[in-house]
């Protein structure tokens, strides 16, 4: 696996990235953004300058191919929308998939949902797992160099990464999609989430 991108280096110590199947409007609707409020913006800096007459935290989204949409949020003042199990349940309903990773100065976390169920949560600092089937991806993660849920083992490639980059690596393993810097270039659809 190539070195996972450094989202903390790019955006600081507060971000949430959600990958989900579906188009931009399906994704944003599932995250409580009214499609009528969505606006196209070329860059993240442009999105930050937008205002809406309705309250809400800013989400930006774009399709990245293979039927997947990437949603990005930096606000977090009402909680990370993409990390909410109820939101992940909506996004992953009826055979779907949704995976989110987030970072704040004190924590990183991955959540993976399928068929409206939080299958696996993962703490990339301690490798602790939870969810309805926390062991489901143990073999896949181990093959990618992750330690087991007790923290034993693991490759130097993974252990040598800071936890936020391990989160990106874990998202790659669970979704089959590696985040690249180009995915964050834009353009984006932006809108306020009422969540």
């Amino acid at each position, binding site marked *: 696996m190539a070195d996972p991108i450094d989202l903390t280096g*790019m955006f600081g*110590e*507060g971000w949430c990235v959600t990958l989900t199947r579906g188009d931009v409007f399906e994704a944003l609707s599932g995250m409580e953004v009214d499609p009528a409020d969505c606006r196209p913006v070329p860059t993240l800096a442009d999105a930050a300058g937008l205002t809406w007459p309705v309250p809400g935290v800013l989400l930006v989204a774009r399709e990245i191919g293979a039927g997947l949409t990437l949603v990005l949020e930096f606000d*977090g003042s009402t909680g*990370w929308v993409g990390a909410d199990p109820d939101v992940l349940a909506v996004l992953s309903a009826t055979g779907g998939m949704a995976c989110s990773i987030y970072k*704040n*100065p*004190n*924590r990183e976390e991955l959540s993976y949902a399928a068929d409206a169920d939080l299958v696996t949560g993962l703490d990339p600092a301690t490798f602790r797992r939870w969810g309805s089937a926390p062991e489901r991806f143990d073999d896949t993660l181990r093959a990618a160099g992750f330690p087991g849920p007790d923290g034993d083992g693991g490759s130097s490639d993974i252990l040598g990464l800071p936890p936020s980059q391990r989160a990106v690596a874990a998202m790659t393993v669970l979704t089959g999609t590696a985040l690249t810097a180009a995915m964050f270039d834009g353009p984006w659809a932006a809108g306020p989430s009422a969540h």
Partner: protein
Amino acid sequence: MIAAAAAAMIVASTLAATEPAAAADPAATPKEAAERFEANVTLTEAQYQQMLDEGKLREAGKTTPPAVSKQQTAQRSTAVDTATPHEPALPPATAERQARQAAAQEAATSTDEVTVTAAPAIGDTPDQALVDQCMTDDAEDGFGRIMNRFVYCKRFETSVSFWRYPLGIPVLVGRNEFTLELFAHGDDHDRRIRTFARVQEGSVDYDVWSPFERLFVAPYVPLELIANCVEDFNTCAATRGPVTLPFVVWDNSDDWYYWDIRGQESAGVGRDKISYAQWYVQFRGLGPGVPDPGHSAYRQIRCDSADYFRLGAGVYPMACIHNEVTPHLTMSRSDLAIGEVARHIDLAQLEPNRTYPLLVPLGFPVPRDKVIPGRYIADDAAAPGLHRIREAVDPEYQANRDHVRGACYKEGPNAAEYADTGLPERPDTTVDQCDEYPMASTLEGAAHPDWDFSVRAVAKKANSDAGNLVRDYYVNDRILSVDFTLPLTDNDRYYVNIVD
């Protein structure tokens, strides 16, 4: 005879008041010194007569007031630079120590009110909302008021006194009293503080002058303002020229004028090129006579070039802040979003013995009290603070997380250590997370060999929201992360203040 008697009375009453060119007591603290730095002008008899003659022309309508240019030169002339006295730069350790002492002394008025949103961009005039928020009665304290690390203000009464020396005896001719307002805004994109100053509109009084002088002389004396660095160009650079206007113009205008005080990166130390400098606003009366300027008290700034301050698409590669305030994150016990976390921290700070992990298993004699740092104590410069670390560069972060996992879940590399002292019941990870204090992003976190810590199960959302608050705080209060190439005592630190 009457005039002579009047003059004698003025001499008698003023000798006991302000002596001309009162020298600053070098042992005085800046707070004390500020109150005594009023300006003076010494007039020869010929110069005094010149002022009277000019006044008579004004009385007769024979002079047209010169067009007053309110323009301020963007460039500071070499002459101004050369004439400005400088003092040696303080060693960083001394500067930091003095700042913390000042912060503890001024804690009642300088409150570090950090907002959740970043401060507005700096323009050619100060943000009125910030001025209104800052310029309270507390700003009239001798120190002024640091509202937060990016915003400082001060309002103080001062004067320019005019003296003549007939027969060698000091005679106070007149005194122009006025209120000076200062507003200094730190930049979160550049190594500068933009310092604004003005005379408060309507504040000028002409005292002691004769009735004729009060109408035709005193208001037309020019007053010059300029902001200066205490240190020389190797440490600090001040931009833009002075502003010189007659008192009558200052008194009838609410215009602000500004100067940029820059902390030189070349003077910085450590990874983040931290430098310290001091600034003040100088004022003096011009026109005939020899001016002896007055100035505001020195205020310290800290500048850095830390490259890790980002908030989404926003990048903040350099900044200067007002360093004489104790940085602290305030959390409310009753806050609907994070109150649960605040209550945990409150318990950890005030009653650490009631927190997990225990020092020894239940049933064993407790050898000592738990000691958990980071509590904000306003007037205690020596209170143990928290030092920020980052997961990307500091292995202490991973160690903190490992210890917390052991104390909460009795898992991981530190499981055995907390087998009998950790939480008796694991957090239910469907709804809860393990909260810890001091936080994982602090050097004093769970893995610290000398400090104790506390863990508790809290609602996931509360824990996540509190983490996001810490993210905003680190950026908005410019909390530098620890640099181990510098003494820990010289590193930035912060506290957590729990309120109702």
